[in-house]
């Protein structure tokens, strides 16, 4: 399986990076991290699913609302590489899931030792971040558009 964070690296370089990681099994319904937790490692999904949620106030209660689901090959927890190193979402496994956890210090040390690997990982990470930004931007624009339409319709009815 090809990990999006390691695209463009040679198989030796991929092995080198994966060797730094720690394989973890998250049980079904288990939590990987919570919003606000210190983010000192990011995760590569190997098997299963990781569900990202965001707390939303619904009827006066805080409920975890679905944001995104990550499948094998995808990266979770890039907040570990971006200051202030705090998770901005919560992550749970809806089914038993295997991930590879990469410590920030270890990964950064490898990138300093091997700038080519570092540059490639940096580019791949920017793709992951940009993809989230572009998706959220489009979704937000569509929601605003709908809100304006609804408000205009209500104002027209009131007239």
């Amino acid at each position, binding site marked *: 399986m090809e990990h999006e964070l390691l695209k463009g690296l040679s198989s030796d370089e991929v092995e080198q990076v994966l060797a730094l990681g720690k394989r973890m099994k998250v049980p079904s319904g288990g939590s990987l991290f919570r919003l606000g937790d210190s983010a000192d490692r990011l995760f590569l999904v190997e098997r299963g699913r990781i569900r990202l949620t965001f707390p939303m106030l*619904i*009827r006066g209660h805080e409920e975890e*609302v*679905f944001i*995104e689901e990550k499948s094998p090959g995808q990266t979770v927890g890039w907040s570990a590489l971006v200051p202030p190193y705090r998770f901005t979402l919560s992550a749970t496994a809806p089914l038993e899931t295997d991930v590879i956890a990469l410590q920030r210090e270890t990964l950064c040390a490898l990138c300093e030792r091997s700038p080519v690997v570092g540059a490639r990982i940096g580019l791949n990470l920017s793709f992951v971040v940009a993809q989230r930004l572009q998706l959220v931007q489009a*979704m937000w624009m*569509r*929601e605003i*558009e709908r809100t304006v339409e609804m408000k205009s319709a209500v104002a027209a009815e009131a007239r």
Partner: protein
Amino acid sequence: MYMLLMGLCFTFFGLAVTAVAFAASTRPNSSPSAVQPELPAPKVSPARFFSDQAASPIPVPPQVPIEVLLQQIENHIRLEQAAAESFVAYPTQALLHSKTSSPFVN
């Protein structure tokens, strides 16, 4: 002379009638000291549907269970994410402004 006296009599009689009529028309309807008979209290009309019921609260539809609501939100986000992914893959104004198929907002 007799005719003159008859005319005067009619004139005085006419004046008297006019004075009495004037006094009757300008007399107040009731004297302030007179005791008014107690009027029966006006009957309160029964409540009318278009006035009283309007103030009553609008019947609220039964609330959707929170689990169902969360599932609806999740389905909506998944559909919107798919629409946003289509836009990001091939950015066009038509894709950005395409109507959502999500029943959550329709």
